[in-house]
């Protein structure tokens, strides 16, 4: 049969689905390999090489950079990071779950209320962190108001405290908690609650035994979406926490800027990745268990 060259090429690919997929996926895959996987590999390599005399990297093999994490100081950074991320996740859950629940049951207001939650998500993280500084600093709005009404005699130090970092993290990641919980509540069949009511369940029992279990996949996803970026965050602690509130993200950044210890910074990055992966695996466990249950 006579075909134009274009159709001949199309027919060739049509008969070979593997090549067609390769042609479509190829450019993106090359990009991801070259600029995501290979860099991670290089960093893994860097993390087991000795540090050079002038801050560079030398050839060789050593585990000393990972060994430094046995040090009390670094252990405490690691612990504080996990603790902050955990507390952030918990606060987000306590604040976000009721919101997701109310949105899911708000009928005609649903889209508007959802929009209000999504809006900060689209807003620059840096801008939102700055908004927090504007409120919390010594000459900030909160201190100014408290002084104005005579509730305090002099400004309370709020910025550059552990609390400021927590507030900033919660403020930054709260939408990530609300959205997945809302998604799972939205799918729920609300007549289940009426069925439970007919069977004699009181409101608390209806929530604990019907609503909450059914929304667990959303809760797990939300916790994951808050916990992971909290672990890796460094902007929040950098801007709201000052020099004292160093988290593992700041440690990594320091090694690549002021301290110029790339191998140790790389090792710290992989320790961070490891903690994140543990978090992801826990989440997958929960999700898989849930799917099996259904």
């Amino acid at each position, binding site marked *: 049969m006579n075909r134009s060259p274009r159709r001949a090429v199309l027919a060739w690919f049509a008969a070979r689905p593997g090549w067609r997929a390769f042609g479509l996926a190829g450019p993106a895959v090359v990009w991801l390999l070259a600029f995501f996987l290979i860099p991670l590999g290089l960093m893994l390599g860097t993390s087991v090489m000795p540090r050079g005399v002038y801050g560079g990297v030398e050839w060789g093999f050593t585990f000393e950079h990972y060994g430094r994490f046995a040090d009390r100081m670094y252990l405490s950074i690691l612990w504080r990071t996990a603790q902050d991320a955990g507390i952030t996740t918990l606060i987000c859950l306590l604040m976000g779950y009721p919101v997701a629940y109310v949105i899911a049951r708000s009928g005609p207001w649903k889209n508007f209320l959802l929009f209000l939650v999504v809006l900060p998500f689209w807003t*620059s993280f840096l801008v939102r962190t700055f908004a927090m500084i504007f409120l919390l600093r010594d000459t900030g709005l909160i201190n100014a108001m408290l002084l104005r009404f005579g509730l305090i005699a002099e400004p309370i130090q709020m910025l550059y405290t552990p609390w400021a970092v927590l507030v900033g993290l919660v403020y930054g990641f709260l939408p990530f908690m609300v959205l997945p919980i809302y998604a799972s509540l939205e799918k729920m069949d609300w007549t289940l609650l009426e069925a439970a009511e007919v069977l004699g369940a009181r409101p608390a029992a209806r929530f604990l035994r019907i609503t909450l279990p059914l929304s667990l996949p959303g809760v797990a996803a939300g916790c994951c979406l808050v916990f992971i970026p909290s672990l890796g965050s460094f902007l929040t602690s950098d801007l709201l926490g000052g020099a004292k509130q160093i988290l593992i993200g700041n440690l990594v950044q320091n090694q690549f800027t002021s301290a110029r210890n790339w191998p140790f910074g790389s090792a710290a990055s992989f320790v*961070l990745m490891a903690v994140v992966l543990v978090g992801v695996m826990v989440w997958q466990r929960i999700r898989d268990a849930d799917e099996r249950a259904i």
Partner: protein
Amino acid sequence: MNRLPSWLIVWCAGVYAFLHIPILVLVLFSFNDSKFSVAWEGFTLKWYARLWERQDIVDGLVASLWVATTSTLIATVLGTLLALALARGAFPGRRWLEMLLYVPVVTPEIVVGISLLVLFVAMGLPLGLTTVVIAHVAFNLTYVVVVVLARLAGMDRSLEEAAMVLGADEVTTFWRITVPQLFPGILSGAMLAFTMSFDDYVITSFVTGPGSGTLPVVVYTMVRKNIEPSINAISTLVLVGTVILVTLADRWGRNRPLAGP
């Protein structure tokens, strides 16, 4: 259905206030005629006027727009093609590809930035806006793929088959049927990529070179140095720009129904 208890509504109102009051205050004080005080001293637009006098902010804005546009274009094209490959059935290595796609989602931003820094230094590539674009595409790609894939999942495959029976070959079918159908998905994927790229500070700060700061890098330096109402002004502008963009994308996307009623 039962009514919601009032304590729940109060709690939610509190959370909404927590989410929005800081931003509202920020916007409000961009119009305050006082450099240091948080007391209201009258309406002014001088902080906005001052932005144009600062070369670093204007340069940063231009750099950001260029980086965000370029990286969005690349990420959207590559991501859409990858999504098509994934939606069109099985091929060897598919599982590996899916895993590769999720690496960027679980990798902390700072690790992305640093690993790319290590790569660029190892390659001897000079740091600048080009390296920033490369980095932004790498982390945006997955999000485009996920969004487009979701739209593809809702699309009726028989639309494309119908076009082919009517005489359109694969390329014609792609442009005349697939792209118009996917458009809302591609648009929201591109939107997501654009905002993430435009907002990114962490990754950019590692892979950018001297003298080529994007807007977030400039703003970060301003926030570190001294806090003045110009930051409120630039934040407000970024905010308004984002809201307009999101609303427009939502409009365009919503007017196009997927197949069926």
